[in-house]
């Protein structure tokens, strides 16, 4: 939260005095027909729409459809993007004619409607925007895009038009501060935006710009169960447009859903497999700008986060992975493996690094070998017999993990050493693991300090606008780091190789749209 002066605060209250939302509608019937056909096609496919064959095609089509409705692109952009999708789709659907003849036929019909869009390339949203900005009473407009991924290309498009080049393109998250202009124009139906865009407006005038074939409906939600008599609730505002012939498309249906199955599939197997790799339970976190990351789901798993609401000294802190939620900004290493502590800790260990890490690998490999051979029950039972007080399934997994250095309690460690045949060297191993632990703590401290310096210099508004930012720490071992906004967390966990944990990856690969998971940000 940024400081607002009394007059800036007063301007915000001024915008809430009268709540009126203007509705501007643009026409693009070809896109409407394509969208309706795609909706019906998805319905006819049923569960098949997310399977391994139809899933990629449906995702690509839905994403294209959504993007064209959510940002004011030029006719050339629309034509190029539709043409490449048509070409890709025609090739992709070829095998389906024999496997799924009926569905393939429907799919090709959708493809033909998309060709109609290519054949009539227009830019109704962009044209309407130029009309509004260029009107005699032309006012300073801030353009609100619900999907941060579309902000950079939108800004690029607007720069090509003199009258629009001064328009600021922002995300809903940027509306948490002061007033941003004379008019806020949201691209897309109101259902795509968080309620505060309209209920706590940051401009005296608020308008939406959407296609006329959408079913547009918005009404403020009830807030408190018993509003105080005389409470200054604004007058009832209802925004309504039924679409063509009362058959408009529900905008919610246009938003592509996240397919966590696909996210896990994209995230697994990126790092070269190693013999000592164990499988760990992980959750998938969908991040802004088309990225995702897998993080260990265990109770002890944690991540560094940047809390934009906090004082600078507390802005970078470590929280449990289970506390990460939509809207959290997490810090991830974008190259050289997910763990940014290890390389810095290794430099602190200096000449001793190789010996220390060898010892760390040694006892973990031996313990994992026993685990694979005899199973968890046998290993925990024997550990307890040898004096371990905390041996159980969960702790055993933690102790075997590459990310763990040593047990908390020396008694557990001694029991492990005895079980894996290193009982006589238990003290030496414990001491060496202690040195690694100390180096990790020093590395964590150093990285946090460097991060705080970087975060202090960062454009936090820019981070809120785009939802992602990369930073380079002066410490060369820490490498490139990225701060990513979390959009969604997988409700389930899956077993993944430990080497795939912690490093962000683009969700879509193999030449598809680079950042295809779309999720409206609130």
């Amino acid at each position, binding site marked *: *939260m*940024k*400081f*607002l*002066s*009394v*007059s*800036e*605060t*007063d301007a*915000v*209250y001024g*915008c*809430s*005095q*009268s709540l009126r939302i203007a509705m501007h509608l643009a026409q693009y019937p070809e896109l409407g027909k394509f969208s309706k056909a795609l909706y019906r096609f998805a319905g006819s496919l049923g569960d098949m729409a997310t399977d391994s064959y139809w899933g990629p095609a449906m995702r690509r089509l839905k994403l294209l459809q959504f993007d064209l409705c959510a940002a004011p692109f030029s006719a050339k952009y629309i034509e190029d993007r539709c043409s490449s999708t048509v070409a890709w789709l025609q090739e992709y659907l070829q095998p389906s004619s024999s496997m799924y003849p009926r569905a393939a036929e429907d799919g090709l019909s959708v493809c033909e409607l998309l060709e109609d869009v290519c054949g009539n390339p227009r830019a109704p949203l962009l044209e309407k925007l130029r009309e509004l900005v260029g009107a005699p009473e032309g006012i300073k407009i801030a353009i609100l895009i619900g999907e941060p991924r579309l902000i950079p290309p939108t800004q690029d498009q607007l720069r090509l038009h003199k009258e629009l080049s001064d328009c600021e393109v922002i995300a809903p998250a940027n*509306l*948490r501060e*002061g007033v941003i202009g004379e008019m806020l124009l949201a691209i897309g139906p109101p259902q795509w935006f968080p*309620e*505060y865009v309209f*209920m*706590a*407006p940051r401009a005296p005038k608020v308008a939406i710009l959407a296609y006329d074939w959408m079913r547009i409906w918005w009404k403020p939600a009830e*807030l*408190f*169960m*018993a*509003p*105080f008599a*005389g*409470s*200054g*609730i*604004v007058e009832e505002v209802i925004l309504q447009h039924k679409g063509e012939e009362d058959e408009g498309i529900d905008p919610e249906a246009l938003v592509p859903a996240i397919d966590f199955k696909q996210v896990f599939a994209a995230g697994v197997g990126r790092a070269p497999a190693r013999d000592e790799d164990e499988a760990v339970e992980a959750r998938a976190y969908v991040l802004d700008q088309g990225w995702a990351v897998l993080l260990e789901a265990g109770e002890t798993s944690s991540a560094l986060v940047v*809390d934009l*609401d*906090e*004082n*600078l000294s*507390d802005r970078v*802190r470590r929280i449990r992975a289970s506390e990460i939620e939509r*809207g959290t900004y997490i810090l991830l290493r974008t190259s050289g493996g997910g763990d940014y502590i290890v390389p810095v800790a290794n430099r602190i260990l200096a000449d001793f690094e190789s010996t220390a890490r060898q010892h760390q690998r040694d006892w973990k490999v031996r313990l994992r070998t026993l685990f694979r051979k005899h199973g968890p029950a046998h290993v925990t039972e024997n550990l307890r017999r040898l004096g371990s007080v905390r041996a159980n399934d969960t702790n055993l997994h933690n102790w075997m993990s590459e990310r763990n250095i040593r047990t908390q309690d020396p008694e557990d460690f001694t029991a492990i050493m005895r079980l894996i045949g290193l009982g006589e060297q238990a003290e030496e191993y414990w001491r060496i693991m202690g040195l690694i632990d100390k180096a990790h703590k020093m590395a964590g401290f150093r990285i946090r300090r460097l991060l705080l310096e970087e975060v202090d210099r960062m454009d936090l508004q820019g981070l809120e606008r785009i939802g992602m930012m990369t930073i380079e720490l002066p410490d060369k071992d820490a490498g490139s780091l990225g701060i990513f906004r979390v959009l969604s967390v997988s409700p389930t966990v899956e077993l993944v190789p430990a080497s795939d944990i912690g490093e962000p990856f683009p969700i879509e690969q193999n030449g598809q749209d680079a950042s295809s998971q779309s999720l409206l940000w609130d």
Partner: protein
Amino acid sequence: MKVAAQEPSFRSILGKLGYVQDSTVAPLPAWARFYLDLGASIAAEPATGAYFVVAISAPTRSFAASLIACGVVLASASRQSDGATVEHIEKLLSVEPGKPVILRSGRRQLKGHYLGAKDIVGSQTMRGTWLVIRTDEGTERYVPLENAAKIEVLDEDSIRLPRSQRGHLIEPPGPLLAAVADEVLVATLLTRSETDCVLVDSAAAVAKVELTAAEFAIRGAAGDYTIGTLQELLRARPYLKRGTAYRAHVLSAGSRYIPAFASRLEPLAALFDGGLAYVKWAEFWKRTHRILVLDRTDRRFEDAVRLVNQEYVERRIDRNLDCPLPDPPRGVELMVFEVYE
């Protein structure tokens, strides 16, 4: 000090408060006056086993909690007598001998060790109960029980006393406080530490700027302006010199020490600035009026609304509110109910 005479005095002066913008003074907007009045109205209600829960949804949180807190402190301080309250005397009488204290003597403030209470029966001039403070080697000062307000118990377990002590001068009131409050209220605010208000802030750094840097002003009879900050009225402890009298605490919602503070601080009102502050810490202050300030753009807005609505359903006392609250300005939604501890 008479409660009925004092309250309208500062409230009417607050009505003349303005703010400084680009070297000019503008009248305080209606929304800002509402927050000051709301804080004063809540603090004017003595807690009788039932406490108010006030939930506010505003277009922005800026200045809302800071102004409410000032209203709470001014109303609470003006309710207090200039003598010692029963609670303060009871607290002093229960303090272990040797505990470090601050003694305010005239315009000076001295460090000391509290030695206990002493009843003197023989002497005509000294008859009565006295609180005894050692301020330096060989010097014991006797403070009449009715002046107990001049003694403040420190948090420290021990302090070293100098051989001889002149003490520090008590700071003069800030210009805005001097203009807003009468002499008695000024003395109460400058010499008595109380926890009228705990402000748990989801953005404590912003609260600090609002309280200590943003300039407010009162127009004098001659048309001149007296300029100062809200901190002069609030006297939030983190922004005061050590050992000076405070009336409020400002805590960061991200602090892990809040449970420890909550076990020690029993404010008249706990203010939660932002959804995070309320969701995380509201449970820790049940024996106080609770005021939640929400900004519709707050990341935890919905969570906090759900929580306060749930409390309304589960714990509200079904009776008419007997508390005159100001009408909120447009764009601000309000819910007020009472709960038992």
